[in-house]
Protein backbone atom coordinates (compact mmCIF):
# COMPACT_ATOMS: atom_id res chain seq x y z
CA UNK A 1 0.00 0.00 0.00
CA UNK A 2 1.17 3.48 -0.83
CA UNK A 3 1.29 5.72 2.18
CA UNK A 4 1.18 9.36 1.39
CA UNK A 5 2.50 12.23 3.42
CA UNK A 6 0.02 15.04 3.84
CA UNK A 7 -0.01 18.63 5.02
CA UNK A 8 -2.94 20.14 6.97
CA UNK A 9 -4.60 23.30 5.66
CA UNK A 10 -7.42 24.98 7.55
CA UNK A 11 -9.59 27.71 6.02
CA UNK A 12 -12.63 29.07 7.86
CA UNK A 13 -13.08 25.90 9.90
CA UNK A 14 -12.65 23.54 6.93
CA UNK A 15 -9.53 21.37 7.19
CA UNK A 16 -7.94 19.39 4.38
CA UNK A 17 -4.94 17.09 4.65
CA UNK A 18 -3.51 17.70 1.21
CA UNK A 19 -0.90 15.51 -0.50
CA UNK A 20 2.69 16.71 -0.87
CA UNK A 21 4.06 16.91 -4.40
CA UNK A 22 7.82 16.71 -5.01
CA UNK A 23 8.46 18.62 -8.27
CA UNK A 24 12.22 18.14 -7.85
CA UNK A 25 14.30 16.35 -5.19
CA UNK A 26 14.35 18.05 -1.82
CA UNK A 27 11.40 20.37 -2.41
CA UNK A 28 7.91 19.33 -1.43
CA UNK A 29 4.84 21.43 -2.06
CA UNK A 30 1.38 21.00 -0.52
CA UNK A 31 -1.02 20.35 -3.37
CA UNK A 32 -4.33 22.17 -3.12
CA UNK A 33 -7.16 20.88 -5.33
CA UNK A 34 -10.27 23.01 -5.88
CA UNK A 35 -11.89 20.76 -8.49
CA UNK A 36 -14.39 18.42 -6.86
CA UNK A 37 -14.22 19.93 -3.37
CA UNK A 38 -17.31 22.11 -2.86
CA UNK A 39 -16.88 22.65 0.87
CA UNK A 40 -13.26 23.79 0.58
CA UNK A 41 -13.94 26.07 -2.40
CA UNK A 42 -16.83 27.71 -0.55
CA UNK A 43 -14.66 28.25 2.53
CA UNK A 44 -11.98 29.96 0.42
CA UNK A 45 -14.59 31.94 -1.53
CA UNK A 46 -16.21 33.23 1.67
CA UNK A 47 -12.80 34.55 2.80
CA UNK A 48 -12.43 36.41 -0.51
CA UNK A 49 -15.98 37.65 -1.13
CA UNK A 50 -15.61 40.81 0.94
CA UNK A 51 -12.37 41.71 -0.82
CA UNK A 52 -14.13 42.07 -4.17
CA UNK A 53 -14.56 45.87 -4.47
CA UNK A 54 -18.09 47.31 -4.59
CA UNK A 55 -17.63 48.78 -8.08
CA UNK A 56 -16.56 45.48 -9.67
CA UNK A 57 -18.19 44.73 -13.03
CA UNK A 58 -16.60 41.41 -13.89
CA UNK A 59 -14.36 38.57 -12.65
CA UNK A 60 -11.70 37.14 -14.97
CA UNK A 61 -9.93 33.83 -14.36
CA UNK A 62 -7.94 31.20 -16.29
CA UNK A 63 -8.85 27.56 -16.92
CA UNK A 64 -9.18 25.01 -15.24
CA UNK A 65 -8.66 24.61 -11.52
CA UNK A 66 -9.70 28.18 -10.47
CA UNK A 67 -13.10 27.86 -12.24
CA UNK A 68 -15.16 26.63 -9.24
CA UNK A 69 -13.70 29.44 -7.08
CA UNK A 70 -14.51 32.06 -9.73
CA UNK A 71 -18.01 30.61 -10.06
CA UNK A 72 -18.63 30.76 -6.28
CA UNK A 73 -17.26 34.31 -5.98
CA UNK A 74 -19.28 35.48 -8.96
CA UNK A 75 -22.47 33.85 -7.64
CA UNK A 76 -21.96 35.33 -4.18
CA UNK A 77 -21.59 38.84 -5.62
CA UNK A 78 -24.10 38.47 -8.46
CA UNK A 79 -21.40 39.02 -11.08
CA UNK A 80 -20.52 37.23 -14.28
CA UNK A 81 -17.02 35.95 -15.03
CA UNK A 82 -14.85 35.16 -18.02
CA UNK A 83 -12.60 32.12 -18.28
CA UNK A 84 -9.47 32.78 -20.32
CA UNK A 85 -8.50 29.57 -22.11
CA UNK A 86 -5.10 27.90 -22.34
CA UNK A 87 -5.78 26.38 -25.74
CA UNK A 88 -7.26 27.83 -28.87
CA UNK A 89 -10.83 26.65 -29.35
CA UNK A 90 -12.20 26.11 -32.88
CA UNK A 91 -15.04 28.60 -32.40
CA UNK A 92 -12.76 31.48 -31.40
CA UNK A 93 -12.77 34.39 -33.81
CA UNK A 94 -9.76 36.72 -33.91
CA UNK A 95 -8.77 35.88 -30.30
CA UNK A 96 -6.45 37.94 -28.12
CA UNK A 97 -3.31 35.90 -27.48
CA UNK A 98 -1.08 36.49 -24.47
CA UNK A 99 2.08 34.64 -23.54
CA UNK A 100 2.70 33.81 -19.88
CA UNK A 101 6.20 34.69 -18.74
CA UNK A 102 6.98 31.96 -16.28
CA UNK A 103 10.32 31.27 -14.64
CA UNK A 104 9.22 27.94 -13.25
CA UNK A 105 7.53 26.46 -16.29
CA UNK A 106 10.22 27.28 -18.82
CA UNK A 107 8.14 26.52 -21.87
CA UNK A 108 5.82 29.46 -22.23
CA UNK A 109 2.14 28.93 -21.68
CA UNK A 110 -0.27 30.91 -23.85
CA UNK A 111 -3.63 32.42 -22.91
CA UNK A 112 -6.47 32.75 -25.44
CA UNK A 113 -9.43 35.10 -25.17
CA UNK A 114 -12.17 34.95 -27.78
CA UNK A 115 -12.74 38.40 -29.35
CA UNK A 116 -16.45 38.01 -28.49
CA UNK A 117 -15.53 38.51 -24.81
CA UNK A 118 -13.22 41.47 -25.19
CA UNK A 119 -16.11 43.90 -25.62
CA UNK A 120 -17.49 42.75 -22.27
CA UNK A 121 -14.21 43.85 -20.67
CA UNK A 122 -13.93 47.27 -22.36
CA UNK A 123 -14.13 50.09 -19.78
CA UNK A 124 -15.02 47.62 -17.01
CA UNK A 125 -13.61 47.20 -13.49
CA UNK A 126 -12.18 43.71 -13.38
CA UNK A 127 -11.12 41.49 -10.47
CA UNK A 128 -8.66 38.72 -11.33
CA UNK A 129 -9.10 35.38 -9.53
CA UNK A 130 -6.72 32.41 -9.33
CA UNK A 131 -6.55 29.35 -7.06
CA UNK A 132 -2.82 29.21 -6.30
CA UNK A 133 -0.18 31.75 -7.34
CA UNK A 134 3.56 31.17 -7.25
CA UNK A 135 5.56 33.62 -9.36
CA UNK A 136 2.34 35.36 -10.34
CA UNK A 137 3.13 34.96 -14.05
CA UNK A 138 -0.33 33.76 -15.03
CA UNK A 139 -1.93 36.58 -13.06
CA UNK A 140 0.35 39.10 -14.81
CA UNK A 141 -0.58 37.70 -18.21
CA UNK A 142 -4.28 37.90 -17.28
CA UNK A 143 -3.77 41.52 -16.30
CA UNK A 144 -2.11 42.36 -19.63
CA UNK A 145 -4.94 40.65 -21.46
CA UNK A 146 -7.58 42.65 -19.56
CA UNK A 147 -5.58 45.81 -20.19
CA UNK A 148 -5.34 45.05 -23.93
CA UNK A 149 -9.12 44.51 -23.98
CA UNK A 150 -9.59 47.98 -22.48
CA UNK A 151 -10.51 46.96 -18.93
CA UNK A 152 -9.17 48.10 -15.54
CA UNK A 153 -7.84 45.56 -13.04
CA UNK A 154 -8.92 46.80 -9.61
CA UNK A 155 -7.94 43.74 -7.53
CA UNK A 156 -5.93 40.52 -7.80
CA UNK A 157 -7.22 37.70 -5.59
CA UNK A 158 -6.00 34.15 -5.08
CA UNK A 159 -6.76 31.37 -2.65
CA UNK A 160 -3.14 30.60 -1.86
CA UNK A 161 0.37 31.90 -2.41
CA UNK A 162 3.39 29.64 -2.66
CA UNK A 163 7.05 30.68 -2.89
CA UNK A 164 8.48 34.09 -3.70
CA UNK A 165 7.10 36.88 -5.78
CA UNK A 166 3.54 37.68 -6.77
CA UNK A 167 3.46 41.14 -5.20
CA UNK A 168 0.14 42.93 -5.30
CA UNK A 169 -1.94 39.75 -5.05
CA UNK A 170 -4.20 39.28 -2.02
CA UNK A 171 -4.47 35.70 -0.79
CA UNK A 172 -6.25 33.78 1.96
CA UNK A 173 -3.22 31.79 3.11
CA UNK A 174 0.41 30.99 2.42
CA UNK A 175 1.48 27.49 1.36
CA UNK A 176 4.96 26.56 2.58
CA UNK A 177 7.75 24.99 0.51
CA UNK A 178 8.94 22.08 2.64
Amino acid at each position, binding site marked *: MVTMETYPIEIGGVTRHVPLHEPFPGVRLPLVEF*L*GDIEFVRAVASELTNRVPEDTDLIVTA*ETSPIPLA*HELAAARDLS*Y*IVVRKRRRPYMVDPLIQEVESLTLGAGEVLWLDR*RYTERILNKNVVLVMDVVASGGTMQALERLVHRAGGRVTKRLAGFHQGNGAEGIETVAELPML
Partner: protein
Amino acid sequence: MKSYPIEIGGVKRELPVVQVGDGVAVALLNLLGDTELTEAVAEEMAKRLPEGIEVLVTPEVKAVPLAHALSRITGLPYIVARKTAKPYMIQPVTREVLSITTGKPQLLVLDGTDIAKINGKQVAIVDDVVSTGSTLKGLRELIESVGGKVGAVMAVFTEGTPRDDVIALGHLPLFNPEEA
Protein backbone atom coordinates in the same frame (compact mmCIF):
# COMPACT_ATOMS: atom_id res chain seq x y z
CA MET B 1 -24.59 37.08 -36.72
CA LYS B 2 -27.29 34.44 -36.39
CA SER B 3 -28.22 33.23 -32.94
CA TYR B 4 -30.38 30.46 -31.51
CA PRO B 5 -32.74 31.13 -28.56
CA ILE B 6 -32.83 28.82 -25.54
CA GLU B 7 -34.67 28.90 -22.21
CA ILE B 8 -33.89 26.83 -19.13
CA GLY B 9 -35.64 27.29 -15.80
CA GLY B 10 -36.83 30.73 -16.85
CA VAL B 11 -33.36 31.91 -17.93
CA LYS B 12 -33.19 32.90 -21.61
CA ARG B 13 -30.10 33.16 -23.77
CA GLU B 14 -29.34 33.76 -27.44
CA LEU B 15 -26.59 31.29 -28.36
CA PRO B 16 -24.28 32.52 -31.13
CA VAL B 17 -24.19 30.21 -34.16
CA VAL B 18 -20.53 29.65 -34.99
CA GLN B 19 -18.69 27.58 -37.57
CA VAL B 20 -16.58 24.85 -35.97
CA GLY B 21 -15.37 22.92 -38.97
CA ASP B 22 -15.82 22.38 -42.68
CA GLY B 23 -19.48 22.31 -43.44
CA VAL B 24 -20.88 22.54 -39.95
CA ALA B 25 -21.92 25.29 -37.54
CA VAL B 26 -23.25 24.91 -34.00
CA ALA B 27 -25.15 26.98 -31.47
CA LEU B 28 -22.42 27.68 -28.93
CA LEU B 29 -23.34 27.04 -25.32
CA ASN B 30 -20.75 28.36 -22.89
CA LEU B 31 -21.56 27.85 -19.23
CA LEU B 32 -18.15 29.19 -18.26
CA GLY B 33 -18.76 32.62 -16.81
CA ASP B 34 -22.55 32.48 -16.88
CA THR B 35 -23.41 31.90 -13.22
CA GLU B 36 -27.13 32.61 -13.68
CA LEU B 37 -27.59 30.07 -16.48
CA THR B 38 -25.33 27.52 -14.76
CA GLU B 39 -27.33 27.66 -11.54
CA ALA B 40 -30.65 27.39 -13.45
CA VAL B 41 -29.36 24.38 -15.40
CA ALA B 42 -28.12 22.72 -12.20
CA GLU B 43 -31.53 23.20 -10.53
CA GLU B 44 -33.34 21.61 -13.49
CA MET B 45 -30.80 18.80 -13.78
CA ALA B 46 -31.06 17.98 -10.06
CA LYS B 47 -34.81 17.35 -10.54
CA ARG B 48 -34.11 14.85 -13.31
CA LEU B 49 -31.20 13.02 -11.68
CA PRO B 50 -32.24 9.38 -11.17
CA GLU B 51 -32.38 7.86 -7.68
CA GLY B 52 -29.36 5.93 -6.50
CA ILE B 53 -26.63 8.02 -8.14
CA GLU B 54 -23.65 8.26 -5.78
CA VAL B 55 -21.06 10.33 -7.63
CA LEU B 56 -20.86 12.78 -10.54
CA VAL B 57 -18.08 12.65 -13.15
CA THR B 58 -17.53 15.50 -15.60
CA PRO B 59 -15.03 16.08 -18.41
CA GLU B 60 -12.77 19.16 -18.26
CA VAL B 61 -13.44 22.14 -19.02
CA LYS B 62 -16.80 23.64 -19.92
CA ALA B 63 -19.01 21.50 -17.68
CA VAL B 64 -16.92 22.10 -14.54
CA PRO B 65 -19.05 24.96 -13.12
CA LEU B 66 -22.19 22.89 -13.82
CA ALA B 67 -20.82 19.85 -11.97
CA HIS B 68 -19.79 22.15 -9.14
CA ALA B 69 -23.28 23.68 -8.87
CA LEU B 70 -25.05 20.30 -9.26
CA SER B 71 -22.82 18.84 -6.57
CA ARG B 72 -23.68 21.72 -4.22
CA ILE B 73 -27.43 21.22 -4.80
CA THR B 74 -27.50 17.41 -4.59
CA GLY B 75 -24.79 16.91 -1.98
CA LEU B 76 -23.12 14.34 -4.27
CA PRO B 77 -19.36 14.53 -4.78
CA TYR B 78 -18.02 15.30 -8.26
CA ILE B 79 -14.84 14.29 -10.03
CA VAL B 80 -13.28 16.02 -13.04
CA ALA B 81 -11.77 13.86 -15.80
CA ARG B 82 -8.82 15.97 -16.97
CA LYS B 83 -7.53 16.42 -20.51
CA THR B 84 -3.90 15.97 -19.52
CA ALA B 85 -2.14 13.85 -16.94
CA LYS B 86 -0.72 16.17 -14.27
CA PRO B 87 2.73 15.61 -12.76
CA TYR B 88 1.21 15.33 -9.29
CA MET B 89 -1.27 12.58 -10.20
CA ILE B 90 -0.78 9.18 -8.63
CA GLN B 91 -1.19 6.24 -11.03
CA PRO B 92 -3.55 8.04 -13.41
CA VAL B 93 -5.86 6.06 -15.71
CA THR B 94 -6.35 7.36 -19.25
CA ARG B 95 -8.52 6.85 -22.36
CA GLU B 96 -8.05 8.44 -25.76
CA VAL B 97 -11.06 9.80 -27.63
CA LEU B 98 -11.40 11.63 -30.92
CA SER B 99 -12.70 15.12 -30.26
CA ILE B 100 -15.25 16.18 -32.81
CA THR B 101 -14.77 19.91 -32.24
CA THR B 102 -11.02 19.82 -32.76
CA GLY B 103 -10.69 16.66 -34.87
CA LYS B 104 -7.71 15.67 -32.76
CA PRO B 105 -7.22 12.79 -30.35
CA GLN B 106 -8.08 13.90 -26.85
CA LEU B 107 -7.04 12.29 -23.60
CA LEU B 108 -9.35 11.76 -20.64
CA VAL B 109 -7.49 11.24 -17.38
CA LEU B 110 -8.59 10.18 -13.92
CA ASP B 111 -6.22 10.68 -11.01
CA GLY B 112 -5.56 7.37 -9.24
CA THR B 113 -6.68 8.93 -5.98
CA ASP B 114 -10.17 9.44 -7.48
CA ILE B 115 -10.60 5.79 -8.50
CA ALA B 116 -11.72 4.67 -5.03
CA LYS B 117 -14.50 7.26 -5.22
CA ILE B 118 -15.83 5.64 -8.44
CA ASN B 119 -15.17 1.92 -7.90
CA GLY B 120 -18.43 0.07 -7.16
CA LYS B 121 -20.45 3.27 -7.35
CA GLN B 122 -23.43 4.41 -9.41
CA VAL B 123 -22.04 7.25 -11.52
CA ALA B 124 -23.78 10.04 -13.39
CA ILE B 125 -21.78 11.58 -16.23
CA VAL B 126 -22.42 15.34 -16.38
CA ASP B 127 -21.66 17.23 -19.60
CA ASP B 128 -22.80 20.42 -21.30
CA VAL B 129 -23.52 19.25 -24.86
CA VAL B 130 -23.53 15.66 -26.15
CA SER B 131 -23.07 15.70 -29.92
CA THR B 132 -21.50 12.64 -31.55
CA GLY B 133 -20.99 11.09 -28.13
CA SER B 134 -17.27 10.36 -28.61
CA THR B 135 -16.32 12.03 -25.32
CA LEU B 136 -19.23 10.25 -23.68
CA LYS B 137 -18.09 6.87 -25.00
CA GLY B 138 -14.53 7.43 -23.79
CA LEU B 139 -15.68 8.64 -20.40
CA ARG B 140 -18.03 5.67 -20.01
CA GLU B 141 -15.20 3.24 -20.82
CA LEU B 142 -12.89 5.05 -18.42
CA ILE B 143 -15.43 4.88 -15.57
CA GLU B 144 -16.21 1.21 -16.23
CA SER B 145 -12.50 0.35 -16.41
CA VAL B 146 -12.10 1.52 -12.81
CA GLY B 147 -15.17 -0.38 -11.59
CA GLY B 148 -17.84 2.30 -11.75
CA LYS B 149 -21.35 1.78 -13.14
CA VAL B 150 -22.73 4.53 -15.36
CA GLY B 151 -26.27 4.93 -14.05
CA ALA B 152 -27.13 8.09 -15.96
CA VAL B 153 -25.79 10.55 -18.50
CA MET B 154 -26.91 14.11 -17.83
CA ALA B 155 -26.46 16.89 -20.37
CA VAL B 156 -27.82 20.36 -20.92
CA PHE B 157 -28.38 19.61 -24.59
CA THR B 158 -28.10 16.81 -27.07
CA GLU B 159 -27.02 18.06 -30.49
CA GLY B 160 -27.55 16.89 -34.04
CA THR B 161 -29.20 13.50 -33.76
CA PRO B 162 -31.52 13.15 -30.73
CA ARG B 163 -30.52 10.25 -28.47
CA ASP B 164 -32.43 8.40 -25.78
CA ASP B 165 -29.41 7.34 -23.69
CA VAL B 166 -28.95 10.90 -22.42
CA ILE B 167 -31.12 12.81 -19.94
CA ALA B 168 -31.03 16.26 -21.52
CA LEU B 169 -32.85 19.51 -20.80
CA GLY B 170 -33.17 20.27 -24.50
CA HIS B 171 -31.90 19.64 -28.01
CA LEU B 172 -29.78 21.78 -30.36
CA PRO B 173 -29.92 21.46 -34.15
CA LEU B 174 -26.82 21.66 -36.33
CA PHE B 175 -26.57 24.57 -38.78
CA ASN B 176 -25.18 25.19 -42.24
CA PRO B 177 -22.04 27.35 -42.17
CA GLU B 178 -23.84 29.89 -44.39
CA GLU B 179 -26.12 30.55 -41.39
CA ALA B 180 -23.24 31.35 -39.05
